[in-house]
């Protein structure tokens, strides 16, 4: 029974809970038990909110019993990335500097999940302040990839994706600034979606890079991701950058895709994302996916987006610049860590000692890069140029979408690498996001759907699907059709 519950999809669980076949408390408890049994090895969760989860589950069960109308995912458990504020529940963003902080408010995403009856199991591990591609930068130790515990689960949202792969939760929330939903999805064999920028409110998402950060759904199936997408998306007056437009019909698109017919759909293969640095196993998995999409009726051709070659350097100027300002508020004055306040030191000294002790090396590196890039005299050369590249990338996307409905590429050049393998080589680490960054810079939606296992190392590979802004449903349709055609590819044994 327990085994069935943790292996079911969110849609299946919701149907069972809403029909009274099983209670949300049972489902929740099964997942809490799974976490208890496996998380010492995986380290996906920073905080498990057993009481809060069970209380929410009981409430849904009561509503179901009383015959009340409940939301499509009411009663289904979810793992929430620790970057989203949760009222009264620790929110560390993977950093020592926020250890012990209890936010006085819920993020809009948190609020929407609660209102929809989704059961929040706890908060998941992440690279500190979402800066990283391996979850090794967490101040609370790395998360381990359930497919191979010696390997990274991707990052920054490695905790959320690992929780899905380890069947600790059927749903998760991630945030994607340069690939932090999609790359972990790819290397853990799960689905990860970065919606159109502004599609999901950022209110309560502890900012890394404001103009790039976007929260999105993570799941083991495309339909589950779509169901979760519709719950968290939508205009929010608390976020000025949120889009005041109807939520794209992603659930309908996912269901339509399950029919398996993609005839007439035009798919562009981005030529920039192959060649040197790409594992053969990844490229072969991608080629196989292309063949399957063709069999589904899609018309596929190559498309060149030359400015994508400059995406990585542009990203590593814009994101650190914004982060250097966003992270200035962590100064020991109002919340979080305070170091050296012994009555002999000045405010500046306490601020400085706290930031020295509270931030990890990667965060410090990016704050320094960003501070430098924004300095007077360098602004035009660095931040200014990066913004121009951003415009060019947006134009490349626009041109490509004149001829193609969606674009595809591998999600990441390699499968999961070993923990520690790239820890001392930031450039190698940064390259994990090579294929995912352009969509962040352009604000367009993109997702990763598993394309099976690499024939080289038996580890999961991801297929990235990209769509124009506000056309999130297009990629869901393609992903669902592909997922059905691909079939099952097994799972990790834990």
């Amino acid at each position: 029974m327990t085994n069935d519950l943790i292996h079911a999809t969110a849609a299946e669980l919701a149907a069972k809970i809403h029909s009274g076949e099983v209670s949300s408390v049972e489902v929740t408890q099964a997942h809490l038990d799974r976490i208890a049994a496996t998380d010492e090895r995986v380290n996906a969760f920073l905080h498990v909110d057993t009481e809060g989860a069970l209380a929410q589950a009981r409430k849904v069960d009561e509503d179901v019993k009383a015959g009340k109308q409940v939301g499509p995912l009411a009663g289904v458990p979810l793992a929430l990335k620790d970057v989203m504020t949760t009222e009264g529940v620790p929110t560390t963003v993977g950093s020592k500097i926020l250890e012990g902080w209890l936010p006085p408010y819920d993020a809009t995403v948190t609020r929407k999940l609660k209102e929809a009856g989704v059961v929040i199991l706890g908060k998941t591990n992440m690279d500190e302040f979402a800066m990283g591609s391996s979850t090794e930068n967490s101040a609370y130790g790395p998360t381990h990839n359930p497919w191979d515990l010696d390997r990274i689960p991707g990052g920054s949202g490695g905790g959320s994706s690992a929780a899905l792969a380890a069947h600790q939760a059927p749903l998760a929330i991630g945030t994607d600034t340069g690939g932090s939903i999609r790359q972990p999805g790819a290397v853990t064999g799960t689905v990860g979606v970065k919606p159109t920028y502004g599609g999901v409110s950022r209110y309560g998402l502890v900012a890394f890079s404001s103009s790039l950060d976007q929260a999105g759904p993570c799941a083991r199936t495309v339909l589950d991701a779509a169901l979760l997408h519709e719950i968290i998306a939508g205009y929010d007056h608390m976020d000025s950058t949120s889009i005041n437009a109807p939520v794209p019909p992603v659930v309908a698109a996912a269901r339509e895709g399950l029919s398996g017919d993609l005839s007439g759909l035009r798919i562009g293969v981005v030529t920039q994302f192959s060649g040197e640095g790409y594992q053969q196993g990844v490229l072969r998995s991608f080629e196989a996916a292309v063949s399957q999409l063709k069999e589904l009726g899609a018309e596929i051709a190559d498309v060149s987006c030359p400015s994508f070659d400059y995406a990585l350097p542009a990203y590593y100027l814009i994101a650190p610049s914004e982060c250097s300002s966003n992270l200035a508020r962590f100064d020991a004055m109002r919340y979080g860590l305070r170091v050296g306040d012994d009555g002999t030191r000045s405010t500046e000294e306490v601020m400085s000692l706290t930031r020295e002790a509270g931030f990890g090396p990667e965060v410090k590196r990016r704050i320094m890069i960003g501070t430098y890039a924004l300095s007077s005299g360098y602004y035009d050369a660095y931040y200014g140029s990066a913004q121009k590249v951003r415009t060019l990338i947006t134009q490349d996307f626009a041109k490509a979408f004149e001829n193609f409905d969606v674009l595809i590429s591998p999600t990441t050049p390699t499968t999961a690498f070993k923990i520690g393998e790239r820890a001392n080589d930031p450039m190698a680490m940064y390259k994990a996001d090579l294929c995912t960054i352009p969509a962040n810079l352009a604000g367009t939606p993109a997702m990763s759907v598993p394309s099976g296992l690499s024939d080289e190392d038996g580890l999961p590979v991801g297929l990235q699907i990209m769509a124009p802004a506000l056309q999130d449903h297009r990629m869901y349709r393609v992903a669902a059709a592909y997922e059905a055609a691909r079939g099952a590819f097994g799972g990790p044994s834990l």
Partner: protein
Amino acid sequence: MTSLVELMDYDEVVEKYDPVLGLEVHVELHTNTKMFCGCANVFGGEPNTNTCPTCLGLPGSLPVVNGKAVESAIRIGLALNCEIADWCRFARKNYFYPDMPKNFQTSQYDEPIAFNGWLDVTLDDGEVIRVEIERAHMEEDTGKSLHVGGATGRIHGAEHSLLDYNRAGVPLIEIVTKMIPGTGKRAPEVARAYVTALRDLLKALDVSDVRMDQGSLRCDANVSLSPKTTGELGTRTETKNVNSLRSVERAVRFEMTRQAAVLESGGSVTQETRHFDESSGSTSPGRKKETAEDYRYFPEPDLVPIAPSREWVEELRGTLPELPWERRARIQKEWNLTDEVLRDLVNANALDLIIATVEAGAKPDEARSWWVSYLAQQANAKGIELTDLAITPAQVARVVELVNSGALTNKLAREAVNGVLEGEGSPDDVVEKRGLKVVSDDSALEKAVDEALAAQPDVAQKIRDGKIQAAGAIVGAVMKATKGQADAARVREIVVARCS
């Protein structure tokens, strides 16, 4: 605390140097809510009660622009004859300071909402000077630090500091002038007159409380001296903490004499921020910064650009009230005032009060008489501005009405005004509480007159002998006996009647 500073004689300063002014005025808007969140925008309050995740800069919080503040900014820009940007953005001004919750201020940098305007300023003698406005931009206020312990109340030397974020995020408009050269020895007066004119304008627009004492209007004065011999621009200082109109004038004058003394002694003026000390009337250097501040401005990514439509701007232009100078011109004509009288009324800060009193029902002469004589004396005695007296024009108009209806004598009216000034309530409240009413009962007055006549038989005899002017003494005695509540004219009639 002030070290001895060498100053140069003022006349000598202006003989040798041309002062160049630049004025930056920060205005707190009195919108209902703060600039980027829904917290109440009110002065004071228990520390940290008007706060929320956004104005406390909590992790994850986001700003949302207050539309009313944008509207006020545009109206201010229009009233200052500025161009209004088709498109503008907020920027982040990054620096660490504990009273700034995010350690950056959300402000406008190279894309202000209003720019290139001017304000005509009338000096005490009626001369009009046009001050060019460089820009008016929107930003948010910081919280307040209270430094406990230590001698100066500044952060240096304090034992600990308390932070109050009630003011954090209050909408501010910063209005910056272009350089104001050529004012010569009148520079201090020009500075004061400019801030006064701006204050009156903002008041007429009803966008701010414009209370310098509460910090809702704050002025930073930039001053430099240009030697007449070379005409080269000098190094400027920026004086902050200038909390009254008079201080604006004093601060500019002090800086001119200080800078001149520095230059005369062969030194050079240091470009720095200085603080004005009200009690000594002098300025002193602010905390020295070890490195040049680099604010690392960049466009605020949490906000979308503001693009006010031309239709909206024109609609707002239509909401501009009669501006102070337009109003003055109209009143001068309507009341037939000479330039001199008008100027005196303006300089005494009385004109707007008189106009408001007239609007509340009094006649111009009656209103003027109250404000320029009795009320002016009261303000003088208290050492405060006429505008700060605790009586409203409507209350003055009510007192006038009570006198005109015969309910109060002039003397009783002054007592009613005293009551209002002492916080006893409205004129009617004071009349009620103090029992102020004209004794109009003739039999009571006759009795009082008879007693007074009996007490002063020689005076009574003089009156009976036809020396009517002697009646004054009896009237005075009766007024005293009735505590001023009798109608003096009626008393006189009774005295004459009793003695004939």
